[in-house]
């Protein structure tokens, strides 16, 4: 049976690991808390904004990716600033198994197919950041700063048509809130595409992971901040998920 994935998202600002709140770097920390043997997957994102970095952020992030790839024997997805196939190639050469594209794909959806052609669809994760707008949702690009006028489910469907192998949906308002995932957002996207959908933004309790799978229809639940606020570990999160009836990997 395919098991539900508990995915750790690591966000790097200028090569330094930060937790985020409302899509802004919020607090610096180290990733020693990641249980390297029990985490199911790692997503590493470069969130350095143009003009804010030291100018060497690309290099430091590259070093980070190379370091994780050599030490962690779990899948690694890397992203942040991918606009071309060459950008994706660079991450893959450093040891990423997949790349995460967001703004680059919004601006030019064909980018998805350009990466999928040589690497396969399973290599392309399209990340969709959205905010609620009344009873609808709207996709934002550029680190959550630019409204695109697109509906997340429509965009997800189009992205899969272009060759996306997975969709990562993040609620901008929930980011760093610890108040739980936006399950409605996840459900809307998951019901429209046949590829796995991962949910991020807002996990603050183990119960939220269960909700993401059961109510949100997610194939994987992502978290970054939560371990920073709890003494507990990935093992205890997974024990909770298993108790709630989900299939999760404990060894």
């Amino acid at each position, binding site marked *: *049976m*395919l*098991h*539900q*994935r508990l995915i750790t998202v690591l966000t790097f600002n200028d090569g330094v690991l930060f937790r985020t709140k409302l899509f802004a770097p919020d607090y610096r920390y180290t990733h020693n808390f990641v249980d390297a*043997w029990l985490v*199911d*997957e790692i997503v590493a994102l470069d969130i350095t904004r143009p003009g804010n970095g030291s100018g060497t952020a690309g290099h430091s992030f590259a070093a980070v990716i*190379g370091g994780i*790839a*050599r*030490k962690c*024997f*779990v*899948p*690694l997805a890397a992203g942040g600033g991918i606009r071309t196939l060459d950008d994706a190639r660079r991450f*893959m*050469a*450093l*040891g*990423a*198994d*997949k790349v995460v594209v967001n703004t680059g794909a919004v601006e030019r959806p064909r980018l998805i197919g350009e990466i*999928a*052609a*040589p*690497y*396969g*669809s*399973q*290599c392309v994760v399209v990340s969709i950041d959205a905010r609620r707008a009344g009873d609808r949702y709207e996709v934002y690009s550029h680190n959550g700063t630019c409204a695109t006028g697109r509906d997340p489910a429509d965009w997800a469907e189009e992205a899969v048509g272009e060759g996306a*192998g*997975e969709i990562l949906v993040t609620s901008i308002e929930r980011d760093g809130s610890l108040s739980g995932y936006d399950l409605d957002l996840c459900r809307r996207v998951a019901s429209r595409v*046949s*590829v*796995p959908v991962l949910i991020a933004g807002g996990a603050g309790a183990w119960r939220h992971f269960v909700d993401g799978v059961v109510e949100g229809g997610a*194939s*994987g639940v992502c978290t970054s901040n939560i371990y920073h606020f709890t003494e507990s570990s990935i093992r205890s999160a997974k024990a909770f998920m298993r108790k709630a009836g989900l299939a999760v*990997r404990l*060894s």
Partner: protein
Amino acid sequence: MSTMQRVGIVDYGMGNLVSVAGAVEYLGYEAVVSHDPRALAETDRLILPGVGAFPDAMRNLHARGLVDALGDLVRRRGTPLLGICLGAQLLARESEEFGRHAGLGWLDATVSRLRPNDPALRVPHVGWNGIRKIRDGVLLKGVPDDALFYYVHSYCIGDAPAGNVLCECDYGARFAAVLESGRVFATQFHPEKSQQHGLTMLRNFLSVH
């Protein structure tokens, strides 16, 4: 003691070589990542990794002269080879990914689209899934029956001869998860991405003599 064993990791412009090399080194072997047939000829065993699309992969292997070179090393000299994911599929006769394309043909099998019988099962098949042991083999030593491995694929080998299939995976369709044919081995999942059980399987392959 002999010198450290050298493991050739075939670099044909596809897939994640860094993590395969990292796992090999973690296990105490020297990783030689190369597309040069002469460099690969000086290794004790070979890993054909792979992430990506079948036609590009075969084209790249041909363009680097690796189809003949690997054939010579594996088929004639008997160097053990492990194909991983796409690298496993390349061992088959042909694939239907993006049209019909000939593979290396070392396994009497074909690669077809993964078509789960349950529409709720999403494709690509991504994540941690189990194996069902069919027959014993050197790769399975120390691997518990309930071990989980990381799969990420949309195509699979569904028609391999029973004698070559050590383990199957069932994802709304049964396909080969671990294969063995003489000194040619293959896994549909990524042992280098499957934590301790994957490392055990890699270590088993690296101990084949």
